[in-house]
């Protein structure tokens, strides 16, 4: 499956902490925070789950359930891309180390990316763009001024 993860999108996600939302069986909405994520190709995203976050949220992070993600820090302003996908839980030490060699986290989430939304305030807010090509989304970024040096 192709997914329009542009270079800019990947760069902002991979260089900032990422806030993710999940929903437990009780319909409670939970937010977790990952210090690191890595794109595995264009359509999968590995999310480091710190031990403390896993301890607090493991009952809510269900295999096959939906997860939504958004960059934090300056990425919350300059990288208004919301990703949604399906959760696979990864606990194999070698696999996790391959994704995050600098981390000793015991758990990671591998997200099969399904949906991408623009969250920029304005007429673009909420626009779903995952059916676009990378080239189309890159052109959209250019039109919005996001490819200017100060916004890269």
């Amino acid at each position, binding site marked *: 499956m192709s997914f329009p993860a542009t270079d800019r999108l990947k760069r902002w996600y991979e260089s900032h902490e990422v806030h993710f939302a999940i929903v437990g069986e009780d319909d409670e909405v939970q937010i977790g925070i990952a210090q690191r994520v890595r794109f595995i190709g264009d359509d999968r995203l590995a999310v480091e789950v710190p031990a403390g976050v896993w301890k607090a949220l493991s009952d809510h992070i269900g295999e096959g359930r939906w997860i939504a993600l*958004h960059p934090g820090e300056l990425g919350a302003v300059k990288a208004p891309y919301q990703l949604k996908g399906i959760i696979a839980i990864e606990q194999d030490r070698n696999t996790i180390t391959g994704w995050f060699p600098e981390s000793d986290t015991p758990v990671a989430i591998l997200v099969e990316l399904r949906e991408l939304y623009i969250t920029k305030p304005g007429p673009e807010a909420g626009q779903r763009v995952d059916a676009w090509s990378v080239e189309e989304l890159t052109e959209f970024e250019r039109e919005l001024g996001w490819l200017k040096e100060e916004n890269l």
Partner: protein
Amino acid sequence: MSDGKQDREAIYDQIREVKDGGKLVHLATASLDGKPNIVPMRFARHAAPDVLVIADMYFCKTRVNLKENPKLALSVAFPDRKSLPVTLHGRGQLAEKGTCGCLGEYWKNWKSWGEDNPPTEVPEGFSPPNPSCRAVLVIDVDEVRSSDADDFGEEVAAHEFPRHRQTQEVV
């Protein structure tokens, strides 16, 4: 606080900085079939004891989700989560034109704050072109939890009963 926990109202007051171009929060909601949505929000403010309000400038899925499931969560995203390392959990209701009672009062009091205080420091290409408040999301905060890695999810502030709910009971 007597038990060593932080004062919830002091935490909410820091959220107020959002409106003035300081902190920005992530608002997470979910549909009834368990699909979450998380979006950044700039117009958030402490409105009453244990009550926050967020301006609905461009709600899309958030609005739909709140009709199905009022449970929500907030996290501080920008500029510095470490200065306010919390997530907030509660329930939200939309107040808009025509809303009566206590909720209607929130609409009356907060409907014009976007126009009155537009963000000024947002980079070109990222600011709302014409901020206009379509509704006010009124949030009853039930829990304030830590977002620090070491004690993530631990409750950090004592609970107080939301005035909004008290008022609703009177109404």
